[in-house]
């Protein structure tokens, strides 16, 4: 069973479109995250949710809106996509928000903006 699953795996779309990425974890974790990994492989945190509550928003444009319908799901909606949004987006989860817990990552969604 996949612990953290993201859909879709690949997303190719035109500039200006709106798209969503879904994430689900079956580990029973309280905390979920969205990361962006650019072409240089640098992994940067975007958002963190703990028990459906937003706890981190790292200066991400308003075009990005996370939604957590329950603690097992954290979706990411992106409005008015721009060329610079092309990247790999990773969802992750951990038992809680403390740094003494490992994070479990999905395999990423590769977003390409044409």
């Amino acid at each position: 069973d996949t612990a953290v699953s993201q859909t879709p795996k690949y997303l190719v779309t035109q500039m200006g479109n709106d798209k969503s990425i879904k994430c689900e974890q079956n580990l029973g974790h309280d905390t979920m995250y969205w990361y962006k990994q650019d072409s240089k492989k640098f992994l940067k945190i975007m958002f963190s949710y703990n028990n459906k509550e937003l706890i981190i928003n790292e200066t991400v444009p308003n075009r990005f809106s996370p939604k957590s319908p329950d603690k097992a799901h954290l979706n990411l909606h992106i409005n008015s996509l721009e060329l610079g949004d092309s990247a790999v987006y990773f969802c992750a989860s951990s038992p809680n928000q403390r740094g003494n817990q490992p994070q479990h990552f999905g395999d990423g969604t590769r977003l390409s903006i044409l």
Partner: protein
Amino acid sequence: SQKIEQNSEALNIQEGKTATLTCNYTNYSPAYLQWYRQDPGRGPVFLLLIRENEKEKRKERLKVTFDTTLKQSLFHITASQPADSATYLCALDPSTGNQFYFGTGTSLTVIP
């Protein structure tokens, strides 16, 4: 500014040798530091965690050290194998909030 830097983007070593990767940070006082492995097309996978009051942690062929004075962690893979080839990321909890910051990553290639 706050930074987490890992040694050279790419590291090549001969099979059987020990690979040593470094993670240096500035302007943080992390309580915990973690190391992850990432294979192409996959998400990072957790390897080891070390606490600020621990000097060293081992798991099979892996060893991590943590020097809070030097603000540095070293990650060692002994008796390296081609299957160890991957990108290795360090990550720390800055103890200033509920977030994790990742290093720039080191791509390790073990040559048969």
